[in-house]
């Protein structure tokens, strides 16, 4: 459980003026699902590509199961299974032909890849579709084929770059079940990037990336605890007027609208003061207020807090997908 399958040590990488990854350090252990969260453009894909050796870092080092990606890329890559964001199987090859090709070019002999392939296809639920052209598979099945191909050589570390992007919710559910079973049965380490906050809860460990850095990391439950007592839920009408009013309060750091609720993050220890101020506003401006109470922090709150703080301290431009008035 404690072996470090992946070590990323102070890795940086720039594209021209843009620093996509900044002095980033992280680890993934066996049996762990490390969720890499963050808005588009945070540098998740660049980091993934550096880890699998498709991009060279400007500085820093990547070790896969203790093997340096810089020094012996082939050996390091043989420990990695990689599922890219885009479907990367040959559409004009059948399921089995695809797996055979990727197994053979990784040096697996026929008596190794044949049983392994059948085992994996059964595992992901494609056992009946070996003869089907990959291009004729549904979106979810394509994703499973990609997963199967990345597992065919029994890698210790699995890199999944937004594997559930553009896939329907049922298939997403399915995919995560597979992943959790995989970690339990084969004791691999998984690094998975995803833009979906709800998927973070399924990870054993999450890291939040913003503007090329890991701004926050830890087990999901611990992260949530950090914001205990800082989140208020407000229900009232008109919601837009409430939103404007709340934004004017200096102690309100962040506002999220979710359905008929406002989700307010307030400065530490200021929950009571904000509650009092909002109630006063309701009287003064004649706004109706149904509920106003502290609530359990969501991971979204944690990430938004981390990003807003990070951006304000680093003085960076506003990041996509984060609202702060």
């Amino acid at each position, binding site marked *: 459980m404690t072996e470090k399958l992946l070590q990323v040590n102070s890795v940086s990488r720039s594209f021209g003026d843009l620093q996509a990854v900044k002095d980033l350090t992280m680890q993934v252990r066996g049996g762990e699902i490390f969720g890499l969260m963050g808005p588009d453009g945070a540098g998740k894909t660049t980091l993934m590509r550096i880890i*699998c*050796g*498709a*991009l*060279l870092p400007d500085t820093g080092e990547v070790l896969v199961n203790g093997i340096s990606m810089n020094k012996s890329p*082939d050996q390091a*890559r*043989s420990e*990695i299974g*990689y599922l*890219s964001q*885009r*479907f*990367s*199987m*040959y*559409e*004009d*090859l059948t399921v089995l*032909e695809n797996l*055979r*090709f*990727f197994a*053979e*070019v*990784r*040096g697996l002999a026929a008596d190794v890849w044949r049983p392994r392939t059948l085992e994996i296809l059964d595992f992901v639920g494609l056992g009946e579709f070996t003869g089907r*052209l990959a291009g004729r598979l549904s979106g979810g099945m394509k994703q499973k084929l*990609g997963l199967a*191909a*990345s597992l065919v050589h029994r890698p210790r570390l699995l890199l999944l770059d937004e594997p559930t992007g553009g896939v329907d919710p049922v298939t997403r559910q399915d995919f995560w079940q597979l992943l959790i079973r995989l970690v339990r049965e084969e004791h691999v380490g998984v690094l998975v990037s995803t833009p979906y906050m709800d998927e973070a809860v399924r990870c054993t460990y999450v890291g939040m990336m913003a503007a090329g850095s890991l701004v926050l990391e830890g087990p999901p439950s611990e992260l949530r605890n950090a914001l205990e007592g800082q989140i208020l839920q407000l229900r009232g009408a008109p919601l837009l007027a409430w939103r404007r009013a709340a934004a004017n309060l200096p102690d309100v750091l962040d506002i999220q609208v979710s359905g008929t609720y406002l989700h307010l993050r307030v400065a530490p220890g200021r929950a009571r003061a904000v509650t009092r101020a909002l109630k006063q506003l309701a009287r003064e401006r004649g706004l109706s207020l149904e509920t106003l109470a502290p609530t359990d922090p969501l991971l979204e709150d944690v990430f938004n807090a981390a990003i807003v703080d990070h951006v304000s301290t680093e003085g960076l431009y506003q990041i996509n997908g984060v609202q702060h008035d």
Partner: protein
Amino acid sequence: MIQRLRSIIRKEFIQIRRDPRTLGLIIIIPVMQLFLLGYAATNDIRNVAMAVYDLDKSEESRSLVQAYSNAEYFQVIEYVSSEEELQTLIEYGDARVGLLIPPDYSHDLNAGQTAQIGFVIDGSDPSIAKTALSSAQLIGQAYGASIQEERLVRNGMGGINFQPVEVRTQVWYNPTLEDAYFMVPGIVGMVLFTLTSMVTANSIVRERERGTIEQLIVTPIRPWEMVLGKMVPYVILAFINTGEVLLIGSLWFGVPIRGSLLLVFGLSGVFLMTSLGIGLLASTIASTQQEAMMIVYMIFLPSVFLSGFFFPIQAMPKVLQWISYGIPLRYYMSIIRALLLKGVGLPAIQTDVTLLALFGLGLLIIASVRFRKRLD
């Protein structure tokens, strides 16, 4: 390494098989080109439509017209009765040339004077006009000479050799001057060039375009293994095409294959290095298959026109002649024509072969270096 290469080659073959339309095109296009160019791209001009305006209407004038139509170059389509009519026929394109015989033609001829005739040629298509012009003069001169001889005989001076010099021409390698002899070897070069460069560029760019390269990157496949693995199937196809064109060329068009077939295929292989290199280079520049096609096409056009495929290099302006030295197809054209038509051995074409091989190596090296960079 060998296993990886074998897997890539097998994968490419499966993909070729799964795309029967493309495979069909690869097999059919050379045959189409062969028949199109073998027949359509001909400079043989025969049976040019001729209108005759005969004002003399004598036995002598009819015999002159007969002399022109006997030669197969001209075909009398109409006798006209006015100059306007002649002009209309040429304007409408019904006639390409007009023969004008003045009213005093037979009179002058019988009086021993020089009789004049007029010959009008539609110059809007220079290649027809040139042939018409020279054949009109030749026929006229020959006819004049025969009249001269007749006169001499009539005057009792027969048997005198009135022609001091006689040029006896002999055309080697292509005695009947068949255009197909010239075109067919050229088509071999064109087919090899288009097929290999376009298909190589496309099949590599496709890996990038479809995202499969992402998965290839995390495998131990080396860039050169991928390139070689992709090339092998298409080189085999290219050789099949070569055989196809040569077979039809010799059976249908009667083009001789005088040189050694081994040399033909071997040197075609050398030429393939250059077109594979060009295809590979295009794939490192292009990011979509369309772009790759455009780039290859950009190289293809000047190659076809400056290689001597259609137009003789010697007839080009000096600048274009210099540029043509930078076109690999040029060397292959002269090699393959020499091999097929003249049946020469290696010594006669060694300069072209050496330059072609250098080009091939250079292109492949540059392309591989660039290709490696794009993968990282």
